[in-house]
C-alpha cells in the first residue's frame, strides 16, 4: 500500500502536534530560561532571545538552587542504592530459597504495592517523630527521614524476584560444588545475571524518589533540607523574583529526570513492559 502525499502530510501534521503538546512546554521553559528578555508571568518564549546564562547564575548563587539540587541528588543517590540493594537481597531469598513463611512474606510485601503512600502519611509523620530506641533521637528533619521511608519498595522486590527465578539452577549448583558460599553465589552468580533488571529497578527507583513530594513535605522542616520539587512551590510565593529566574530553577529541577531517562531508555522500556508499573 502506497501512501499518497496528502496522507504523508497529514501524518506529519499529527506528529508535529504530538511533539508540540508533549515537548513544546519543555522547550518553552528552556528557551525562556536562557533568554535575557524579561517575560511576564505566564509568558514563554519560543526561541531564546539574547541568549544568556544570567538567570541560571542568579538561581545558583542568589536563590541557592544548588542546595536543593544537592539535597535531591543526595537523597536520590543514596535512596536508589539502598532500595536496589535491599530489594536484591530480599529477592534472592524469595526467588532462590524454599522456606517456611515465604508465601506470607511475599504476600505482605505485595500488599504494600496496592497501598497508596499518601494514605499512610499521617501515621508516618508521627513515626518519623518518634525517638529511636537506644539513640534517643528521632529521624525527623534529617536526610534519613527523606531517604529511609523509600527503601522498602515492593515494585523493585517483585521485579528482581521474577528475574532471579529465571536464573538456571545449574549455575548455582556448579558454584556451590566449587565451594562458593551464599554471599559469593549472590554476588558472583545471581547479581551479574540480573544486571538488566537491576538497571530497570534503578531507573524506576530514581524517578520515584525524585518525584517524591508528600514525604519531603512531612519529613523535614528546615528549608535547607528541602528537595528541589518541594522548594519550587515556596519560591513561587516570592513575587519579587523575576519570572525567568523561577523558570531557570524549574529547568534545573527537570534536567536530571530527562537525562537519566534518556541514558537508561532501554532499561526504562523493559520496566514498562513488565507491566507492574505503579504510576
Amino acid at each position: 500500500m502506497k501512501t499518497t502525499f496528502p496522507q504523508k502530510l497529514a501524518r506529519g501534521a499529527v506528529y508535529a502536534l504530538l511533539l508540540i503538546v508533549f515537548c513544546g512546554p519543555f522547550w518553552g521553559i528552556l528557551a525562556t530560561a536562557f533568554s535575557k528578555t524579561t517575560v511576564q508571568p505566564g509568558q514563554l518564549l519560543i526561541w531564546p532571545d539574547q541568549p544568556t546564562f544570567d538567570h541560571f547564575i542568579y538561581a545558583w548563587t542568589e536563590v541557592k538552587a544548588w542546595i536543593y539540587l544537592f539535597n535531591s541528588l543526595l537523597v536520590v543517590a543514596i535512596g536508589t542504592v539502598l532500595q536496589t540493594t535491599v530489594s536484591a537481597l530480599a529477592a534472592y531469598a524469595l526467588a532462590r530459597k524454599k522456606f517456611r513463611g515465604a508465601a506470607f512474606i511475599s504476600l505482605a510485601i505485595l500488599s504494600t504495592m496496592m497501598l497508596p503512600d499518601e494514605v499512610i502519611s499521617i501515621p508516618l509523620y508521627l513515626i518519623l517523630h518518634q525517638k529511636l530506641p537506644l539513640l534517643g533521637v528521632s529521624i525527623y528533619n534529617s536526610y534519613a527521614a527523606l531517604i529511609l521511608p523509600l527503601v522498602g519498595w515492593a515494585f523493585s522486590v517483585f521485579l528482581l524476584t521474577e528475574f532471579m527465578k529465571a536464573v538456571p539452577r545449574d549455575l548455582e549448583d556448579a558454584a556451590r560444588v566449587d565451594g562458593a558460599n551464599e554471599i559469593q553465589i549472590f554476588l558472583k552468580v545471581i547479581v551479574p545475571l540480573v544486571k538488566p533488571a537491576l538497571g530497570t529497578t534503578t531507573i524506576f527507583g530514581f524517578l520515584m524518589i525524585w518525584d517524591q513530594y508528600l514525604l519531603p513535605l512531612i519529613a523535614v522542616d528546615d528549608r535547607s533540607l528541602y528537595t528541589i520539587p518541594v522548594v519550587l512551590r515556596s519560591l513561587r510565593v516570592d513575587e519579587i523574583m523575576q519570572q525567568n529566574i523561577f523558570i531557570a530553577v524549574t529547568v534545573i529541577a527537570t534536567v536530571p529526570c530527562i537525562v537519566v531517562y534518556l541514558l537508561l531508555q532501554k532499561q526504562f522500556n523493559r520496566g514498562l513492559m513488565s507491566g507492574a508499573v505503579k504510576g
Partner: protein
Amino acid sequence: MSIEPKRWRWTIPWLFLAPALIFFTWFKFVPILKGLIMSFYQVKFIGADRWVGLANFERALTDSALGAAALNTLIYVFSTTIAGGLLAFAVALILEGQALHIRIIRTAIFFPAVTSVAVLAEVWRILFYPAQTGVVNSILGLFGADPQGFMSDPNQALFVVILLQVWKNIPYSMVIFIAGLAGINRELYDAADVDGASPLRKLWHVTIPGLVPAFSVVIMLSFIRGFRVFTEIYTTTGGGPAGSTEVIMTSIFKTGFERLDYGYAAAVSFMLFTFTVGLTVAHVAIKNRFSRT
C-alpha cells in the same frame, strides 16, 4: 568451622530478607496498623488519646465538605480515565511501529511522564496563566476568545487539573496499548482484509477486542492514581479556588497537617485505603472472569 552448617541453614533466607523486613515493617506495616488504630481515637497532644469508637467514621459519612471532595475526586477519576484512555489509544494507533522517526517521537512524548509532578505543576501554571499573557490564553486570543480564568476560576479549575493528569499519563497508557497491539494476531487482520473489511470495521472488530486486557490495565491504573491523587492538586491549585478542586487526599492533608485532627484524618485515609484495595480485588476478579471465557 565450628558452626554446624546444617543446623543454621534455615537462617540464610531470613538473613537476606532482614533489611527489607526492617524497612517494610518500620515504614509500611507499622504506619498501616497505627493508622488503623488512630482511626478509632481522638488523638490529643496533651494527655492520653481518647477512644471514640466509630465516631470518626460516622463523621466522615456525614461530613459535607468531605462529600464535596469525594464528588470532585469521582469526577476527576472518571474524566482522567475516559479522556486519558481514549487519547492514549489514539496516540498508540498513530505511534505504533518500529520506524526510527516513530521511536524518536515516542521517546520525546515521554518527557511529561518522567518529569516530577512539582515541575509539571509549575509548567501548567505558566501555560494556563489567567491573564492575556498566559500561553494558552494568547493562543485562544488568536481565535478571538477572551482571556480565561482557568485555575483561578472555580468553574474551570477542575477541568484544567484534569488536563494535567491526562497529559502526564497518556505516554504510560500509550505504551500499554502499544504492547497490546503487538500481541494481536496478524492473521486476524489478514482475514479481515480478505473479507474486504474497512479500516474502521477492522478497528472495531479486531483491534478493540484484542485490546481488552490493555484497556483493563489502563483503566485500573488510572483509577488507583485518580483516587489517591494529591501532589497534582496540591501543587497547582491547593484545592481551590473555593474548594472547586478539593479532592479526598488534599482534604485529608488539611485535616491532618493544618487542623491537626489526626484521628479523623487517619479514619478517612483508612476508608480510602480500603476502597482502593477493594478496587484492586474487583479488578483481579473481573480479569480472571474475562480470561476464563
